[in-house]
């Protein structure tokens, strides 16, 4: 962890001779429009400036994977390139092959150390958009590439992307379930909990330092908090009945579905497990809360109409309204970090699909019907991507698509069943 911090401090040193990255004068991508075209981008081989040459290809591959995961770029085939990207850039050379953007990098790899200079050029206007230098150890190459990918996204869209995020998910094997973590692109999958029973429904704290989940203790589902930094997780809610589906509000408090009263309602609790006010009062099952980014509204699942549907509660007035109609089973809501939509799963003709809807119940969009169904959606922190689980290959695995339903990548390649992704906030590197 300390080592990574040092790298990032170094990485913040931009090269003095480069002009600072200005806010782009023209709009490269209108990210509010789901069907906007992909930006053609050329990225020739990274050029070694002395020392060993073993890491250039890997750096190029990592950065390319990051950019493709956004669904925003069309990385052009290197075989078509007329220039090498060395020395002075000739914009016309790159425009002729259809490129609008060009990424070049030069690196120095000596012993265990690595220095790398990365640039993003606009070859239409012939100007440098971003230039960064990163220095560190060879093993930090992925972190350096993810960092630069975020810089590219910030230059193009005005905000950083997901390249400093983790995804928690549930892995089932041998009749047990544990929470696992992986990087945003599916790499570095590793076990997070080791409780030896059923552990599921992971949810991140707003600062990314805690993961809450449901875990069985003596046959009872309880709610535990688990520091990303380590430890074994601490049970905070163990009331008679069930203690399910913890979700953080932006103030750090935790909502969970508890049934100690006989009804399964959602309560707001502090992190010590003190149970506060009930947020719902359905006669049957209220479960799976998720908050709007400002914490003023909460979406959840209730069966008060006779089958599970999505409801929204206004936290100030306590008023509730149903937002899903026309389908007999809607569940697993997740409120977009941008605030404008709620993702959920819906039964359409016997197959569950991931859909999104506005918080007022308008403009429902089914996203996964073209690619084999989907369940348990989770938004990326920039609100551009959705991770979800799907059984389209026979076993549950985790996939990612754009918020408009364009499939991008399968993230898990693990044995067993892998489901219920929960995307972390930005700035979570995770312990390895």
């Amino acid at each position: 962890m300390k080592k990574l911090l040092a790298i990032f401090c170094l990485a913040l040193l931009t090269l003095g001779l480069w002009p600072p990255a200005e806010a782009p004068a023209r709009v490269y991508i209108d990210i509010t429009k789901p069907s906007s075209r992909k930006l053609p981008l050329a990225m020739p081989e990274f050029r070694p400036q002395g020392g060993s040459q073993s890491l250039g290809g890997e750096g190029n591959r990592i950065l390319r994977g990051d950019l493709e995961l956004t669904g925003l770029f069309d990385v052009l085939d290197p075989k078509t390139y007329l220039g090498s990207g060395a020395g002075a850039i000739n914009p016309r050379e790159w425009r002729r092959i259809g490129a609008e953007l060009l990424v070049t990098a030069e690196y120095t790899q000596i012993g265990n150390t690595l220095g790398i200079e990365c640039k993003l050029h606009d070859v239409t206007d012939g100007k440098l958009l971003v230039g960064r230098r990163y220095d560190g150890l060879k093993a930090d190459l992925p972190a350096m590439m993810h960092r630069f990918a975020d810089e590219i996204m910030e230059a193009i869209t005005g905000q950083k992307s997901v390249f400093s995020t983790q995804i928690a998910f549930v892995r089932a094997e041998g009749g047990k379930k544990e929470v696992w973590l992986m990087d945003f692109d599916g790499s570095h999958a590793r076990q997070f909990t080791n409780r030896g029973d059923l552990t599921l429904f992971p949810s991140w704290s707003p600062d990314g330092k805690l993961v809450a989940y449901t875990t069985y203790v003596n046959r009872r589902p309880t709610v535990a908090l688990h520091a990303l930094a380590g430890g074994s997780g601490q049970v905070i809610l163990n009331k008679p009945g069930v203690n399910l589906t913890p979700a953080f509000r932006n103030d750090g408090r935790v909502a969970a579905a508890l049934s100690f009263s006989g009804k399964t309602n959602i309560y707001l609790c502090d992190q010590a497990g003190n149970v506060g006010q009930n947020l719902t009062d359905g006669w049957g099952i209220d479960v799976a809360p998720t908050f709007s980014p400002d914490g003023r509204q909460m979406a959840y699942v209730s069966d008060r109409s006779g089958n599970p549907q999505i409801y929204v509660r206004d936290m100030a007035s306590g008023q509730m309204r149903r937002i899903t109609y026309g389908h007999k089973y809607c569940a697993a809501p997740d409120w977009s970090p941008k605030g404008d939509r709620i993702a959920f799963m819906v039964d359409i003709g016997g197959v569950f699909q991931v859909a999104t809807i506005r918080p007022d119940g308008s403009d429902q969009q089914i996203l996964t019907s073209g690619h084999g169904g989907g369940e348990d959606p989770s938004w990326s922190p920039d609100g551009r991507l959705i991770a979800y689980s799907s059984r389209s290959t026979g076993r549950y695995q985790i996939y990612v698509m754009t918020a408009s339903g364009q499939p991008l990548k399968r993230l898990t390649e693990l044995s067993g069943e892998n489901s219920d992704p929960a995307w972390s906030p930005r700035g979570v590197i995770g312990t390895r």
Partner: protein
Amino acid sequence: MKKRMVWTLVLALILGLAVGASTGCSKKEVGAPGELSAEEQARLKAEEERRLREQRLREGQAGGALTGTEAQMREIFTNQDIHYDYDRYDLRSDAKQILNDKAGYMQSHPEVNVIVEGHCDERGSASYNMALGEKRAKAAAAYLQAMGISAARLETVTYGKEKPLVRGNTEEAYAANRRAHFVIK
């Protein structure tokens, strides 16, 4: 006596095959107007199978002592699940009949304490199913309490859709997995 049990089993097997074959035939016509839905068919089939199973058990008992041996009764108690409709936790009439038997067993065996496990089929969200499984277990436990069993002897547990009895995504598997299972502590 052993011979008779074997014959009973053979008979039951033949009956079971006949039922399987007949539902197999009607399945080909699924989708024709006026036909039962696959879900309803599966439910009827599950009920029929349960009836046959019970008949088998009763015949087995009749062949031995009048009420069966202690071991047999205990086996029936723990092996016989009750079943629920999709996304429902109210008790069906067939479930109530089985619960009557279970209440009888618990009344004649006051030393027995029971864990009632609520289970769901694999469709739908894991979280909603976990809540639903608890409602199923509680509905069964409440019925037993109404039949005079002390709440102190009943523990309810939910496993949602986490521990299916039967693998597979057929209506038959779904119907078998929507159950309350009874474990003697």
